[in-house]
Every structure is written in C-alpha cells, then in structure tokens.
C-alpha cells in the first residue's frame, strides 16, 4: 500500500498505448489511438460525448479488451484481461457511474476483493478510516453507500482504489456530479497525489477544468486521438477546435425574427404540489411564435411545475393557460400534444424520463408520434424513416436505428429525445435543461436546432441553468423565484447581475414584451 510514496521518478512513462482499436458492433469507439501517461503528471483526456474516452480507459482497467494494439506499463508490454490484472499493475479507475455495492458499508466496499483473512473483523472500519486520513479525506466507514451523497460515494471510490495501492489513477468525469466547492476539494487531492508521484488521468469535457488542473491534454474526436498539447501552451478556443474539428466561435447565434401571435397565454397561474405547498404563485406571461423565452431561477423555483402544468401533467389550482384561444385546463397530456405543444424535459439521469432505455431509436420515435390506434400494428417503417432523419439532422453517433438507446452515450440520448420532439412539428416547444451535461459541440447542435425552430415560427420555452448561455440564446428571460415571476427582461440588454438579483428575490415591474400590441 505504500507504493504511492516509492514510485519511480517523475516524468517517467507509466503507461503507453500504441495503436489501440476497439469496436462495438459497427461503431468504432477507438481507432488506432496512441497515448502516453507520465508519472507526476495530470493528463486530461478531453473529447465530446461519445468520442471514446471511457472506452479507451476501460481497456486499462480491464473492463474491455482492445481489438488490436499494444499496452505497455512501466516499459513492459502487458495484457490486461480483467480488473484484477489492472489492480496488480497499480492501475485504478474511478468510473463515471460508481461501481459500489449500495447495501454495504463504506469500509466493506473499500476492502472488497483486497482484504485478507477468513472472517470479517471489526478493525476493518478503523483500517478504512486510516486510509482516508492518510490522504487527507474523511469518511464514515460504517455508513451504507445508499445513505451517502454523491461526493461521499466518490470519496469511497477513490479510497477503494488507493487501498489497493494504485499509483496510476484514472477518473472518468469525476466533477460532473460535484458542486464547485467539492470539485475544488477533489482537485486538491489530485494535486497532492500528483506531487507524490502518481500518474493521473482525468476524463472530462469541461474546458475550464482542463485548463485548471491538467499538465497535458490529449484530445479525442470520434474515436481518434487528434492532438496532445501542453496545457500551458493552449487555450479554450484551440482545445474546442480540436474537440469539434472546426473552428467554433464560442458565441451562440441569435437570429432576429419577428415574433408572431401569442401562442401560449398564462394567466395568474397558481399550482400546488401534493403536500399543498404553493409551487407557482400567480404566474402570468405569454409566449409568442418565433421567440425563445428563457426561464431562469435557482433550482426548484417552480420550473418543473411550470413545464408539467403546461404539458397537462399537473393540476391547476387557480388561473388559466390558453393555447391560442383554447383553455387547456382539463385536457389530457395526449390532447395537449395533439394541439401542438411538445415538451422535452431532461432530468438529471437522462434516461429517467421520456425514453425507454432498452428499445432502439426507431421504437423510441414511435412512442410519441404514432399513438393513434388506427391499426393494431405499429408503423415501424415510418418510425425508421423518422429515426434516420433525426440521426442525420442532430448528428447522433450510433451504430444505427436498431441500437438500444441505453447503449448511446449521454449526449446522444439527449439528442434523440429532443429530435423526437422537434420532429412532430410542434408549434410550442418546451425544453428543460436540454444541454445538461453536454459537451460544447453537442450543445451547439442543440442551440442550432432550437434556433431553427424559432425561425420556423415555433414558440420555444427554454428552461435553463447557464445564465451566460441564456443571455446569448434567448430573446426574453423570465425570472422565477419561489414560484413567483420577479421580472421579464429583454435578453439583448439584460445583464447577469440583474438576473442574479431577480433570482435571489428582488423584483422589478419590467415585463418586457408583454405589453398589448395594437390590433392583435
């Protein structure tokens, strides 16, 4: 276990990959990749979703086996056939989706497969606590995993790997689930381990993190390694270009359109949740065709209830929602969809809502648009056509329309969801967190798709998290705080500070774009 401290000199090559290729069916996840990992260094593996980062690292952790190519550890060629082999070579991986046994304690997870002795002894808890202390971390070794927060689980994962004496550490998107403070704490730990002489690989698609923590960056694109650069000699724009494959203006387009009629009118809407707590309080606004209306607010300010109420999934306490001139209260979700109102809500676990994970892309298309029971058989042909179009339009990386959705990488799952909503030609599109967890390239594909809808005259309600993005993309921004509208601003002139204040509860009388236009 003390291998961490007596590893060989810094800068020495810990792992070298030569010509690694791996395919899943017809998807080539890794194509002839070369990679060098050094001791005493943090290497960032950067790439869009689906570019093959996880797959490549899983070949070092023994989960996958390369179809061809060679792996050298400390200069010797090795064949990593199982996670045990990886452990023996000092390689430890912290997976994006934690591999922990929920019903066991932290200590039992840490010693799993690594401890000795016939009986489980109580001192294993003490032992686990000591390992944590040695690396400046804290855990409660007797706590069950299912009672832990994400950040605690991650600590257990890291300790588990360190307990096995790993000195080559791979972390797959470790910050995706952490708050900024937790991220900083993790980075502290990683820096300390690097200074101890460990080799560290951090997989990410967040540019600012790459620039902050790494010493070198290797960029993957569509399964190929396109460049390796020193972090100190690069910048966000260059990295993005490598990642996406073309120069990307990190500026979001906002086409000027002429807003048309009011498609959705919400009057004094009040809704309560099951416990009788008011979630939306006297909310009034309208949404016109040809505009993107952003909805900002701290999480839990009523965004979810707003979406659900418009989609007919949540009862109205007071007030009304009119679609054109028609009251939608009392209509079933299906009738509302038929009116032309579409909703795509991306929950934190993307598969949680809206898609059936083991069905393929074509079947998932069918779930929404072909529900009219004219025939007992499902019109598979039409769905296949539709799936093909969506794949092409949104640039979805997949082995084909028959691939189950759960096999897709996260960003591509999101594209399928949005693509399906757009494809039914809605006149109102509600989209909540459509770029959650997405890399830049995929985010821009989604922004473009939304802008295209706007140009077609669709009214887009965009519920978002990132104020910078909303200020660039939206036409107007409505701010919610504790279920109340605290202001509706012109996104072309508003500032982040202004919105921040409204999010925190300040109010303004400004209701930009809501005034009655003559002869409407």
């Amino acid at each position, binding site marked *: 276990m003390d291998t961490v401290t007596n590893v060989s000199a810094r800068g020495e090559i810990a792992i070298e990959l030569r010509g690694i290729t791996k395919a899943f069916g017809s998807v080539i996840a890794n194509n002839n990749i070369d990679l060098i990992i050094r001791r005493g260094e943090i290497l960032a593996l950067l790439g869009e979703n689906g570019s093959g980062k996880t797959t490549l690292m899983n070949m070092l*952790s023994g*989960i*996958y086996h390369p179809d061809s190519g060679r792996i050298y550890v400390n200069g010797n060629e090795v064949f990593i056939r*199982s*996670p*045990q082999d990886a*452990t023996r070579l000092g390689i430890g*991986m912290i*997976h994006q989706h934690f*591999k*922990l*046994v*929920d*019903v*066991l304690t932290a200590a*039992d*997870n840490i010693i*799993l*497969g*690594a*401890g*000795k*002795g*016939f*009986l*489980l002894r109580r001192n294993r808890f003490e032992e686990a606590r000591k390992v944590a202390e040695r690396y400046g971390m804290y855990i409660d070794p007797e706590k*069950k995993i*299912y009672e832990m927060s994400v950040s605690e689980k991650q600590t257990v994962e890291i300790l*588990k790997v360190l307990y*096995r004496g790993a000195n080559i550490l791979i972390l797959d998107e470790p910050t995706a689930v952490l708050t900024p403070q937790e991220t900083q704490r993790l980075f502290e730990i990683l820096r300390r381990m690097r200074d101890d002489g460990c080799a560290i690989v951090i997989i990410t698609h967040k540019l600012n993190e790459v620039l902050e923590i790494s010493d070198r960056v290797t960029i993957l694109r569509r399964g190929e390694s396109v460049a390796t650069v020193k972090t100190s000699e690069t910048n966000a724009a260059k990295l993005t270009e490598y990642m996406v494959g073309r120069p990307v203006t990190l500026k979001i387009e906002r086409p000027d359109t002429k807003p048309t009629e009011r498609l959705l009118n919400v009057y004094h809407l009040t809704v309560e949740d099951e416990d009788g707590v008011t979630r939306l309080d006297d909310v009034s606004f309208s949404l016109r065709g040809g505009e993107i209306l952003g909805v900002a607010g701290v999480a839990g300010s009523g965004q979810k209830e707003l979406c659900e109420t418009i989609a007919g999934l949540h009862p109205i306490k007071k007030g009304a929602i009119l679609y054109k001139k028609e009251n939608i209260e009392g209509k079933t979700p299906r009738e509302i969809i038929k009116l032309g109102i579409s909703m795509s809500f991306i929950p934190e676990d993307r598969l949680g809502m809206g898609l059936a994970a083991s069905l393929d892309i074509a079947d998932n298309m069918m779930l929404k648009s072909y529900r009219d029971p004219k025939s007992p058989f499902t019109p598979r042909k039409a769905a296949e056509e539709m799936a093909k179009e969506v794949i092409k339009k949104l640039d979805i990386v997949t082995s084909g329309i028959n691939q189950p959705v*759960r*096999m897709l990488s996260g960003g591509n799952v999101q594209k399928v969801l949005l693509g399906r909503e757009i494809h039914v030609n809605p006149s109102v599109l509600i989209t909540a967190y459509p770029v959650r967890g997405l890399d830049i390239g995929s985010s821009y594909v989604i922004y473009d798709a939304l802008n295209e809808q706007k140009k077609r005259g669709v009214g887009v309600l965009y519920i978002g998290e990132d104020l910078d993005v909303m200020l660039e993309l939206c036409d107007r921004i409505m701010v919610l705080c504790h279920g109340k509208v605290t202001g509706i601003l012109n996104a072309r002139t508003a500032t982040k500070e202004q919105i921040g204040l409204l999010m925190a509860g300040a109010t303004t009388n400004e209701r930009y774009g809501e005034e009655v236009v003559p002869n409407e």
Partner: protein
Amino acid sequence: MNTIVNFLFAAIKAGTPLLFGTTGEIITEKAGNLNLGVEGLMYMGAFVGFLVGFYTESLLLSLLAAFGAGVLGSLIYAFLTVTLKANQNVTGLTLTIFGTGFANFFGEMLIAATKGGAPKLSAKFSAKLAEIQIPLLSDIPYLGRALFSHNILVYLAIIIAILSWAYIKFTRAGLYLRATGENPAAADASGLNVTLIKYVNILLGGGICGIGGAYISLLNGNGVWNNGCVNGQGWIAVALVIFASWSPAKAILGSLVFGAFTIFQVRAGDFAAEFPALSFLSSIPNAIYVMLPFLVTAVVLIITSITRKREGAQPASCGVNYYREER
C-alpha cells in the same frame, strides 16, 4: 396440550425439507441467480439419495450422493446461466421439469427392478434415521418432545442454516457473495472473480437442496420409494426465501411456519376434536390449507415492499445475468 406438542413436532418435521431447500436457494439468490429449479434439484436428491441408501445402507453415502445430485443438477443451471448467459427463469423451470422427469424415469426403473414393486429401505438403514432423544433437553416437559427428540437430519438442517447465515454475514467469502449478487459490476471492478463466486455458491446451494430431497424420500414415505414424493415442496421453498427475507436464520422460523401450514390440513381434525371451539377447522376445504403458505408469502411480499428496507430485500441483481462489456 398433547395435540399442540404433536402438532409442533410434526410441523418441524414437515418444515425440515423446506428448510434445506430454502437455505440452498438463499445462497443461490445471494449470488444473483434466481434458480427456479429447486423442485427439480430436490427430486434428483430424493432419488439418488434413496438409491444409494437402498443399495449401500449407509446414511453418510446416501446424503453425500444426494448432495452430489444437487450439485450436478445446479451445475447444468450454472453452466447455462453463468457461462452461456441463458435466461435464468427459463433455465430454472427447465431444470424443474428435468429433475422431476429424472426421478420419475429412474424411479420407475427401480420399481420395476424390485421384487414386489415397492423398493423399501432396509430396517437397518431406517434405524439410523430414528428419532434421537437428546439427553436432558428431551426431558423438558412438552418442549423436550417438540424440539429435542427429532431425527438427525432435522438437526443437520438447522446446523446448515445457521452455518449459512454466519457464512453470509461474517466471513469474507460471504461478503464477496453478497457483493456479487447485489452488483456484479462493482464486484468485478473490485477484482473479484464473479464467475467463480457464482459457480461455487450455486453448486453449494444446489447440493443443500439435494439433501432436502433426500429427507423427503428417506423419511416421509415410510422408507418406500414414491415417484411423486417431492410434490411441490421445492416451490414452497422458493416462496419461503421471500418470507425469510433472504436470511437463512429467519428461514428456520419460516420453515416451521410453512411446515405447520402444510400439515394443518391433516391435523385440523385433531384440533377440532380437542378444542370444540375450533371445530370449524375441519370443515374448511383442504384447498384453503394448501393455499395458505402462498397466501402468507404474498402478504409478506406486500409488507416488505411497503417497508422497503434495503437489507431485507432481494439481492439487487438477482435474476439478471452479468456481462462485463455491457453497459
């Protein structure tokens, strides 16, 4: 009072084969494999145990043979589900059909080969399965008769259940077993040999089920072989696993309760005779008694799913085969 003591005594006896089956199935399910072939495994154990006892007159060999038959039967199951990743439900059901047919086919041959057509264990052999009065303990009034004067296999079942409970809870191998059944991907990433752990425990569980079968054929038919002897007890054992919430220790109590249900139909008359207030018992149709164990299991299932305690639930990956490369 005697009626109650006799009832308890008989309930424990009736619960013993269930306890073997349940303990075996718990170990199997803890490894993440739902084996619906318990009935078949018990049939195989019943026949092979009987055959060896019949010819060798050795109880030890008979039990070892029954254990071996269970191991072999579950080896088929393990090979199909763990190595070839076949559907667990289908494979288990097939194993039940296979085991039942196996016992019927060879049982019929044994009957044909025996003079008089009724293969019967020798008196010498059956004496080994006589009830043992445990010194001192069996002298306790009432309880002594009900609890401490059973045949040796009853105690064996309880010892195996307690050992299994300790194995799962307190040993390192038991920790690995639990991890494998809960989350094989995590176990694998931790460096455990998931395939080996599954094989070892499925075979161990299968062997224990086999002994349960032998109990039935050696004791329940007065030493005479009967082709249909197991008669659904394997299925009750599968239900009992849920009742025992995957704990072999709770299975001891559970098997007593279920054993009581299975003999209630026979004993209802006694109760009615002794306690006039209970005379309605003998007028309840037999089918109700047969249904009781399953009804209780359903109720337990509902209660456990309402309370939703993570520890007493089915292992999270039970029924799902593990492929390393699948996401």
